[in-house]
């Protein structure tokens, strides 16, 4: 843009003296560019953080819409179900593991909720069972989270695994999250598990 001004100046005048004026004008613009760049940087620095933000799911807001599984930019979502064992009741009838209509409490595929069978059930002692997540199989659909939250203690929660997440500038899931549950938090915090 500034270029054109200088051209105009040039077109109106000829001779070395005029070129000197043109150079002067250009130097002024350069100084202006430097100053504005510098001041913008200074202002931005005052708002900046060393603790880089990362994307994470606020489990209090999450509504288990299933879009974590379908909208992540990665082939398999970086969103995984995580199990807060401290909150778990170790129930035999686990709302996160079994379909709500289940009749027989066994590990048959027809009884399981998880579409990829990523939730594993291990017998501990009567009447307790432990539930673990095979993260490699989990696609973050949140079905078990919904089941656990509706019927149980909510110990299964969807979180973004930072080992997988590419930390996009704008999380593609956050863009479509109906509940605004995907937020930026300081990297030092990392996870927002309910405890």
């Amino acid at each position, binding site marked *: *843009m*500034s*270029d*054109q001004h200088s*051209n*105009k100046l040039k*077109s109106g005048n000829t001779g070395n003296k005029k070129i000197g004026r043109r150079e002067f004008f*250009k130097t002024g*613009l*350069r100084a202006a*560019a*430097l100053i504005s*760049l510098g001041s*913008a940087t200074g*202002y*931005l620095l005052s*708002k*900046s*953080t*060393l603790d*880089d933000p*990362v994307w994470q799911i606020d489990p209090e807001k999450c*509504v288990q*819409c299933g*879009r974590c599984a379908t909208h992540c*930019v*990665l*082939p398999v979502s970086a969103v995984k179900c*995580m*199990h807060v*064992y*401290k*909150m*778990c009741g*170790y129930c035999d009838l686990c709302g996160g593991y079994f379909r709500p209509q289940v009749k027989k409490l066994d590990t048959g595929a027809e009884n399981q909720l998880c579409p990829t069978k990523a939730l594993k059930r291990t017998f*501990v*002692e009567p009447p*307790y069972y*432990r539930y673990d997540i095979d*993260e*490699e*199989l989990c696609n973050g659909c949140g079905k078990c989270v919904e089941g656990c939250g509706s019927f149980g203690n909510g110990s299964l929660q969807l979180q973004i*695994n*930072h*080992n997988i*997440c*590419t*930390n*996009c*500038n*704008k999380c593609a899931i956050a*863009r479509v999250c*109906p*509940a605004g549950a995907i937020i930026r938090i300081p*990297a030092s*915090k*990392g*996870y927002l598990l*309910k*405890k």
Partner: protein
Amino acid sequence: MSLATKAMRTEVNHQKTDFEPNISTSSPGKPFVWTTFTGLLRVVLLLIVLLSYQSSFAEARFPKPEFESGHVPPETQTVAPRAAKWEYVDVAVLFVLLCVMSWFVLGKRSRKGIVWTAVASVLYFGVYRLGCVCSVGSIQNISMSLSQADYIIPLSVIAFFVLPLLFTLFFGRTFCAGVCFMGAIQELVHIKTVKLPLWLTKPLSFLPYIYLGLAVLLAATGADFIICRYDPFIGFFRMSADFGMVIFGVIIVVLSMFIGRPYCRFLCPYGVLLGWMSTLSFRHTTISPSSCVQCKLCEDSCPVNAIAKPLPVKTEKPNQGRRRLIFMLLLLPVLVISAAWLGRSISGTLSGIHPTVSLAQEIKWENDQGRKTNSEESQAFHSSGIPAEQLFQDAGEIQRQFRLGSSLTGAFLGLVLALALLKTAVLKKQKNYEPDKANCVSCGRCYRYCPVGKANSVSL
């Protein structure tokens, strides 16, 4: 899934427990902040919060089964995010690559050096960092940070925004030459230049301004980050993208085999800023190492059509040039104001991109129709307990921002158009073949064509 990967994964988990974030101790990576007074204050506050949290913790406690078999419930495993120090590494790599590239462009005039620096950039920023630390996209963070008080911007993003601009102000667009991984890809796959006609390049060169205007508007209002969303190359590195974006990326790559840098020239919003800086640059690369002999050999060598050639000037009727100039000057305010008006009139449509506004539209639709859409958005909104009036008010506020921002964007585009027209009415006398500073991306392809000092360069 093989057993080996399984085993590896378990190992990773064990390792990673060492990196578990520990909030009660300060992180060793940033001692200088924590020594400041505010830092101390924060620690104290944090401790108070932690202590008070302990006492109220009882609320959320869960009955824990007492296992007779001595079973110990495992801890929840989380892997800490990438440590902050790696961000500094990114910035350092950018800085080093910029220095190296500028040296190859201005000092060594080595096309080979430029190409290998571009390869390095693709490998680091593309293959290793998966394309997601990027100066082009940083525009959005900067505009959001400038417009929204509570938006926190990482230091590295500021560096990624400012460093290339600074380097360009001093050395021309050496960033574009190949430090930018997007530019580098297009540079590396380019095979043979098909020259584009003027009727195509002129209208298309208006696109980056529109893209920039929209990107800033949408980012500043918090609606969307369109530069990242429609990044054509990033999918190659992630090896996954939306189907449409894969197609778009393939088209751009195929085009850039035969057309010089289609993305840089006809889309890149950051290129607009870099072009301004480059116009003012203190030093800029030249076609000829010393002085131009006007041999015309380089005339068609530039794939991005950025060689300005000396043209004969026919004398026109007296006053014709002046009249044209005055007309263009008078046109300027008209264009700016009418484009601002147009921007304002389209602001309503644009505001629909903002999720809050589109949610408000949905809820209003529900109110009008007397039934629920039952979409996830609607369900989540109704269960959030936020009153609809609050939502409508928020949406109204965003629409107000859009009205202002959209008018400004319009005015900006009007100004760009007016100045482009004005430029065509101004005589520019030129004797030599020289790069058009705004558009030249310092790729160094023209060096080879210049016969001046060839003997010297061979001996080097």
